[in-house]
């Protein structure tokens, strides 16, 4: 049975990684699970310089999901390399580093720095964070800017580039195509959905940032549709994510067209989820006599 998949030049021993921002820098969950069993570790977004992040409260529970507006708090490239890279580079599985910037030049500079570092599995370009004023989603919701970011990073690195797409567009196909044409090796679909919640007793927003991003099982059906649409628009692989809680959810994303999947919010409440998903995919393949996980990708039947 073959569970391994290929994301550009990046080989994953199985199709399951974790979503950026839900797994810290890997070491935090290494105390609870064997991270070497994952397909890859994806770390929280890094820009050139340290970022303090948004005021609190930064998250709020909602029905079958949660809102977050962390504001990409992070240590910057140097802080990350010093504090977190020694652990990650010692892992048997590749690390996908999520990067962002407030200008095209900054994206490229961060990409260049990680290319020079050596040993990085892939770079995920975060052009879709809804919780920061500059950078993030503004690049993911403008085809021209999106192309510029991807092309600028492409120029400075041979590392696999995964563009993390914004769900906040009327039709994802042209954006997916723009990322592919600019040299992206894969797409990550999708990021959180802009949303908000109000405390009716205080009449205040539940997040200090007022709005945030909705994640968790609540968004799964929307994410499955986006994965289907994006994967039809491009030839490059898609990593599907959005509310995956178990292997059935993951298989649904694969059938919709994803080559790999990422477990996100579920890590927060059930750190074993990613490993359970891997075991469950294996069980499903055994049961259905599927020899290669790639046979599942895009295998759903839209016609009756």
């Amino acid at each position, binding site marked *: 049975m073959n569970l391994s998949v290929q994301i550009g030049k990046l080989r994953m021993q199985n199709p399951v990684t974790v979503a950026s921002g839900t797994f810290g820098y890997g070491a935090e969950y290494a105390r609870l699970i064997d991270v070497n069993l994952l397909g890859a570790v994806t770390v929280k977004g890094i820009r050139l310089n340290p970022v303090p992040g948004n005021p609190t409260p*930064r998250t709020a529970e909602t029905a*079958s*999901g949660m809102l977050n507006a962390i504001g990409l*708090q992070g240590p910057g490239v140097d802080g990350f390399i010093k504090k977190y890279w020694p652990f990650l580079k010692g892992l048997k599985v590749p690390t996908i580093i999520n990067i962002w910037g407030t200008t095209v030049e900054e994206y490229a500079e961060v990409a260049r720095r990680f290319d020079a570092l050596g040993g990085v599995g892939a770079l995920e370009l975060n052009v879709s964070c809804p919780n920061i004023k500059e950078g993030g989603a503004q690049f993911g919701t403008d085809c021209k800017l999106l192309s510029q970011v991807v092309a600028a990073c492409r120029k400075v690195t041979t590392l696999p580039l995964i563009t993390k797409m914004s769900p906040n567009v009327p039709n994802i196909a042209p954006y997916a195509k723009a990322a592919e044409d600019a040299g992206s090796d894969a797409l990550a679909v999708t990021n959180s959905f802009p949303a908000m919640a109000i405390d009716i007793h205080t009449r205040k927003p539940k997040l200090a940032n007022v709005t945030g991003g909705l994640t968790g099982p609540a968004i799964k059906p929307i994410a499955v549709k986006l994965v289907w649409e994006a994967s039809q628009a491009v030839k490059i692989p898609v990593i599907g994510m959005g509310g995956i809680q178990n292997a059935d959810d993951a298989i649904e994303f694969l059938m919709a067209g994803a080559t790999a999947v990422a477990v996100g919010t579920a*890590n*927060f409440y059930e750190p074993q989820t990613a490993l359970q998903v891997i075991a469950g995919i294996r069980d499903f393949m055994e049961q259905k006599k599927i020899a290669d996980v790639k046979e599942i990708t895009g295998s759903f039947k839209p016609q009756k």
Partner: protein
Amino acid sequence: MLEQTVQIVANERDTDSYFKIVLRAPQIAPLVQPGQFAHVRILPLRDALLRRPFSIYQVAGDTFSILYKTVGKGTDALARMRPGEELSVIAPLGHGFTVPKAGGEIPLLVAGGYGMAAMYLLAQRSPQKGIVFVGGRRRVDILCEKEFAAIGWEVRPTTEDGSHGEKGLVTHPLIAELKRTVAHRKVFACGPTPMLKAVGKIAGDFDVPAELSMDEHMCCGVGTCLTCVIKVKSGDGWEYQRTCTEGPVFDSREIAWEAQP
């Protein structure tokens, strides 16, 4: 830190809206340090997915317990669970209190409401007995008085309505005690944030060290999500630190109170 499915041994009303739940957790119980917490997934909550953090109250044999107040759907659902049912627990978590050494500083404990429970292990494991100041709105909000007395601690209760102990705020008898003497005294506190802020200021005014267990909204509990951050002094400014990992117990002098929201 371990993630385990644990069985409820007992789950009974303590007083008013306060409950004590006892969990059989033979591998977790021996690891617990005073001031640490357990992150609990309450499966009957269904579409409310996130874990709830609770300070650990007592450790006995292969069990540990939690004292909680029913304040919302999580704790309401927890209160309806029965012995024999199971919970998923990640524990023990966080950086707890520094247990005083024999012959060291005399601990003065300050607790608000169920903050009292978070200080029980500290009192029990401290070779140095001290005084515990406990405050609440009404008599029913004063918890664990007997339990602290049973391990040789002097308890000085205060209630805002005067229904038990001294009438007023818990900080009043603390100030009176510190006015009497500050030599070899150290303050430890757990309770609502305004109380912690007041206690931190009093400790500073009297130049007495203080450790405060901070209460912040939490999500993952293990340091990844960056929900539960507070501002801690760093250089000329501040930086965010995680209540779940660098805390919940912080040295009062490190907290950048003026920068908190």
